[in-house]
């Protein structure tokens, strides 16, 4: 029992989970702002989503770098950990493209920003799932 409990703690990605949870909420905020802009034409929502996205990208970058560092440690080198890093990278890349789209003026961001923000949120949620999946994968072994 003790061994399993220890393995549980080891297999969880605690710092990552916190980081990617934060990023995910920012990405969700960006998506909601995009939806609000789409429905209202009020430019402030466009500004909000640009900054929320930028914040999400900074945190995702930190989470990605942290996950790479952890991959250097043997006990983290499991397939969910790899998948987690890859997902974070994908989130960041799509998020960055979304940020470039958001840098267009006014309605020029539509509808690409909306579509990309949905994908970013989906990828971020999936990363989050893998951050926690580390727990189950570790426990199963």
């Amino acid at each position: 029992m003790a061994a399993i409990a220890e393995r549980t703690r080891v297999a969880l990605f605690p710092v990552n989970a916190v980081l990617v949870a934060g990023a995910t909420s920012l990405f969700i905020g960006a998506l909601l702002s995009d939806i609000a802009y789409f429905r209202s034409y009020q430019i402030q929502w466009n500004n909000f989503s640009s900054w929320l996205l930028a914040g999400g990208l900074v945190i995702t970058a930190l989470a990605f770098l942290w996950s790479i560092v952890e991959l250097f440690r043997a006990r983290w080198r499991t397939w969910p950990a790899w998948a987690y890093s890859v997902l974070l990278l994908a989130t960041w890349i799509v998020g960055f493209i979304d940020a470039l789209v958001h840098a267009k003026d006014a309605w020029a961001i539509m509808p690409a920003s909306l579509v990309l923000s949905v994908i970013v949120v989906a990828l971020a949620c999936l990363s989050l799932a893998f951050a926690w999946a580390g727990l189950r994968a570790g426990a199963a072994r």
Partner: protein
Amino acid sequence: MKRMNLLATTAAAILLAGCSGGNAPPEQYGANPQLPTPQRGLLPNMTIAKPAAWGDRLPTVPQGYAVKAIATDLRIPRQTLVLPNGDILVAEGRGGNAPKLKPKDVIASYIKAKGTSPIKGGNRLTLLRDANGDGTYELKTVFADHLNAPYGLALVGDTLYVADQDALVKFHYTVGQTHVDGEPVKVTDLPSVINHHWTKALAASTDGRYLYVGIGSNSNITERGMTAEVDRARIWQVDPRTGMHRAYATGLRNPTALAIQPGTGALWAVVNERDEIGPGLVPDYLTSVRAGGFYGWPYSYWGRHVDARAQPQDPQKVASAIVPDYSLGSHVAALGVAFSLPAMGAKFADGVFVGEHGSWNRAHPVGYKVVFVPFRDGHPAGDPIDFVTGFRGKDGLTRGRPVGVSVDPRGALIVADDLSNTIWRVTPVKPAAAANPPESMPAPREAPPAAPATAPAAATPRAPGVPQA
């Protein structure tokens, strides 16, 4: 910086590779410019000027003309006014207080600042005087100080009007004066919230009854919201006696310079159009301004070409949009306009000079010169002719950026350069007598597209490379 440009342009080029029209679009001059389809990659096309000193180089002028720097070390000279006694007033300043709303604004303002002068704006008027008429302006003195980014200048009788970035003010002026007496008197406030496009162009009607003030939009294409655009992108007609105004024409994105046509008294403007929909959109233009006219911004450009970035759209406004008279080419950034006189020489007697600050939103730079748009029967006729070039050399370095242009009735073109902080004066080498048929210069009749390969040796010892745009 070069790496950043390279990165931006390369990335933009890659992103645009799939689209048509990624290459240099055709010249877009005149009444019917070819308009490509709007396009924008993930990054905007950017080529920012790389500033360099003139050293002993000079701008290039057509054969038979000489160019000389008559004032240097100014503090961001923009527009000039030739006074009745030949003195020249120079408005110096840098305005605008637009907040950075998006991450893009932070990055873009940093990059664009690389292509402009780092000097602090003067917020003043400087007077230049050539007392003995030898072409050397020996007196350079501060005429009025503590203004707020002055730009447009107009003299009506003994009243000098100055358009600050936030107000139209006036001074009493007596010919020969070298400093104002007293404080400026406000005629009216001008729209100044945000001031994304802060320059306030100014012209006075021939009879002096009205003043016209050009007020630029508060954004490229409404990205600061429509509430920021109240009283923007238009030309005001101001009654100087009461300060009352009405919108004379609207939908002009950034009317950066105004001029009254001699003879007809018609108001003309150069207008900077919108960015970020491709290197060939939207042409900056020269147009006579129709009272009550709507010129498209933000809903449409060049008449009824809808700009989908402005939402919600207004189909009724689009239907009423006027097509401007004359395209100067996309992104040239026309910032100065002045009607010519016979004293400028036969080839350049009838038409307007246009100062082009030069592009940023384009891989192949355009502008960075002063062109002459020939007129016939009071309307533009023919392609622009290069008049002052060499501001951007073949070496890719930019030594100057033209802004305001003024015609000195004695036969000279005054060009303000806000990158090298210089005032240039271009004169016919043998001044053509205004009354006589101007045969003093062997001007070719079939106007070749200005071949200023070599400048007159006497006046311009070294001619820099001429960029053939």
